[in-house]
């Protein structure tokens, strides 16, 4: 060992000494492990943010859902091909108005206790309990009395869920729900052990030791905002099917450039790109992968009677000049986005094929003459010489502002329509949307579950997310028709009716279906991208040598 104290150091060297020490220390810092390791079956990633809520009953954001999808499991789950498969439930039986699940004996919590039907009863009651104030309570609305309980009109015990015995769970439905089974793979419906939940008090899921896991992995180490490490769960019933030993989120940062740098440095094995980092990834000659996220982005109009956008001809005029192809190519620029054509994204399934193949959306080419004619008619109907400036409300992200500016320029040059762009931060924009303080708002919708209804009922008059207050009895009738049927033919025909209304009434202006581009280490196989639930899904991934 060096003893620096005995040396007589010239005072001139003093300021340099700490710097030298640091440099020496830096060099002895051992090279850390790389992003993937085939022998140990570990993968390193970065999270975009600290998961804000790992209590599955109240979680709503993508990062929390990503983690929960790996460390917990519902009655059903998605298999390596993306098909619905048995999870905690071994088998089930569905009827028009009920569902019975038989739970497997070997499904265990990470403390060794068996996962029982009671754990589901407790969790589901908790989700719809108005005191929990879960934003995702509506996921359980197909269950009998869920909506009434959530609105405080019925006691919790009236919820249509019953543990017949430890391993048999019976659900009574409010109405026939063709997609009910898919809901049982979603985080909101995952089980929670009552005993453990009560023991943690208000701190349930605040730390890695404050959650019980029943999924393929468990959180072994969670340093808030720094790292989150998931290890294979030795108590998981299907552990034989799991290859990965460790999913180590060693970094947490929202900065895409920092994540790209970590990827270049081989510290992480997966990262999403954006418009800015895309070119650098190209320059590094990485293989860029594409994925359509399932979300649809559109401009939503305000239908409140005092608003000028209430006028259908005006909306149709805007529709007639907007060119989604040009928008995707010129404004969005990153590859992977699809031009918007419908409220329903192209991945949504119809009866046998994707819905949009069975019922193609009407696509019209931009027609300036027609748009001008429509605008003249709109002015006549409104009794206005000129249309006053329309307020376009958008979020404060650079992309949203850029899109708004494109619309502003395009409508000005083509139709001499003035747009006033109102840029607001997240919460302010929401408040303005809810209060109807806009003419047009830049909005998007991502699927909550894998069924067409997650988009279909968006503009039903009773839907609270219908912030423009669109109100059309025919639209409502078709939504109800689809909701109350289990027959795919009937449901899809009703949805096709909706698609026509959306276009003819120009309820929204579909802009694009969101695509993302990402980098993935070539040694990772079997990582699944998915539009609903935990994305990306590493559950069945493995590292090849």
């Amino acid at each position, binding site marked *: 060992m060096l003893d620096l104290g005995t040396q007589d150091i010239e005072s001139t060297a003093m300021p340099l000494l700490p710097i030298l020490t640091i440099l020496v220390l830096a060099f002895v810092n051992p090279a850390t492990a790389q992003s993937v390791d085939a022998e140990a079956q570990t993968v390193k990633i970065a999270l975009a943010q600290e998961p804000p809520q790992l209590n599955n009953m109240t979680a709503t954001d993508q990062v929390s859902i990503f983690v929960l999808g790996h460390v917990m499991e519902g009655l059903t789950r998605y298999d390596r091909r993306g098909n619905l498969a048995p999870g905690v439930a071994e088998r089930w039986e569905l009827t028009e108005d009920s569902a019975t699940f038989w739970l497997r004996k070997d499904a265990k919590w990470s403390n060794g206790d068996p996962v029982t039907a009671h754990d589901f009863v407790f969790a589901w009651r908790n989700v719809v309990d108005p005191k929990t104030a879960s934003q995702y309570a509506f996921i359980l609305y197909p269950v009998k009395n869920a909506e009434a309980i959530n609105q405080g009109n019925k006691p919790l015990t009236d919820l249509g869920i019953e543990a017949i015995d430890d391993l048999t769970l019976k659900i009574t439905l409010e109405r026939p729900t063709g997609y009910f089974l898919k809901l049982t793979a979603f985080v909101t419906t995952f089980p929670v052990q009552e005993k453990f939940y009560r023991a943690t008090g208000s701190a349930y899921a605040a730390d890695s030791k404050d959650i019980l896991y029943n999924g393929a992995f468990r959180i072994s180490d969670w340093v808030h905002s*720094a790292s989150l490490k998931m290890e294979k769960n030795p108590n998981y019933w299907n552990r034989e099917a799991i290859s990965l030993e460790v999913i180590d989120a060693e970094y947490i940062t929202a900065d895409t450039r920092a994540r790209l740098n970590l990827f270049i*440095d081989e510290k992480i094995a997966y990262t999403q790109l954006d418009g800015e980092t895309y070119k650098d990834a190209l320059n590094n000659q990485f293989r860029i992968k594409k994925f359509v996220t399932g979300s649809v982005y559109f401009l939503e109009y305000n239908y409140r009677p005092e608003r000028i956008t209430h006028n259908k001809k005006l909306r149709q005029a805007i529709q007639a000049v907007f060119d989604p192809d040009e928008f995707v190519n010129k404004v969005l620029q990153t590859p992977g986005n699809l031009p918007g054509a419908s409220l329903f994204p192209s991945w949504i399934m119809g009866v046998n094929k994707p819905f949009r193949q069975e019922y193609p959306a009407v696509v019209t080419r931009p027609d300036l003459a027609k748009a001008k004619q429509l605008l003249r008619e709109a002015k006549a109907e409104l009794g206005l010489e000129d249309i006053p400036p329309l307020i376009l409300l958008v979020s404060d992200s650079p992309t949203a502002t850029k899109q708004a500016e494109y619309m502003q320029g395009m409508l000005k040059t083509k139709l001499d329509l003035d747009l006033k762009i109102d840029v607001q931060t997240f919460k302010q924009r929401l408040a303005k949307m809810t209060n109807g303080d806009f003419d047009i708002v830049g909005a998007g919708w991502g699927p909550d579950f894998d069924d067409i209804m997650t988009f279909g009922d968006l503009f039903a008059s009773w839907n*609270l997310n219908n912030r423009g207050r669109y109100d059309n009895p025919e639209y409502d009738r078709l939504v109800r028709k689809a909701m109350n049927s289990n027959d795919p033919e009937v449901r899809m025909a009703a949805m096709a009716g909706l698609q026509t209304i959306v276009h003819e009434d120009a309820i929204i202006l579909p802009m694009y279906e969101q695509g993302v581009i990402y980098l993935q280490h070539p040694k990772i196989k079997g990582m699944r991208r998915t539009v609903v639930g935990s994305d990306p899904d590493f559950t069945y991934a493995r590292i090849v040598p």
Partner: protein
Amino acid sequence: MLKYTFGRILSGLVTIWFIATATFLAMHAVPGDPLMNEKATTPEIRANLARKYGLDKPIAEQYIIYLSNMVQGDFGISFTQQNRKVNDIIQDHFPVSAALGILAITFAALGGILWGALTALYRNQLPDIIIMFLVILGISVPSFVFAALGQLLLVNINQWFDISFLPVAGWGTFAHMIMPSLVLGLGTMALLTRLMRSAMLEIVNEDFIRTARAKGLSPSRIFFQHQLRNAILPVVTVLGPQIAAITTGGFVVELVFAIPGLGRYFVQAVQQLDYTVIMGTTVFYGAFLVFMVILVDIIYGFIDPRVRLK
């Protein structure tokens, strides 16, 4: 001295109360609903949340409840992480920011004093011109540019030499702290260099320096024993507030280098209208800054009796 110290602490407490009140009012004046989220919720659910956070009460009552909790050192539960106490957030993440800040200020102080002294010594010669050019750069270029450049530099070094010279991002070891604290300290280093330079130049023409020279002392002795020692005082003055500013102002650096500091919570809370975290972090940072200023005042009182008498 006791009276002086007491007076400074009292005015400090009034300042903190003022910060808390101003933040409370400003926060509630910001349009937008902290309980609103992308998915619309029923009025019943919103009412339940409002009750949980005490937002259903009149604003004056909220203010009184808030102040009395604050006096007891309880900042409540975060709005976005509904199972985490704000106190825990500060406790978990402030030490990270503090460690980063202390290292940054060490870099800044050492560098500032050294460069400042050098520029004064080589006044209007090449080293002075080069260093002062860099100083202007350091003051005018925002830290996010340095952060991005610093990280890019590391990536390239690691790639070119195929070694793990320094980690590109992350937290945990001393090596993780070096680049972020350098970047974080750069602005302050530039500021201190300028301060040091002008202080040194003032002293060069003082009588005691001339005397020392006349006595035939070696230039290096004059430089270290007489010039440096006297010129360092103004640097000490600004160091207090700079320490507070550096430990609290690292948001961008924390983001780029994936560091779990309090700065990220501070900024995100404002974006998310997370009332309890906004209040907790602002008051905490405010109190910290006030504390540092008082500390410097008191130390100065010891060093220089003239300050006390005023």
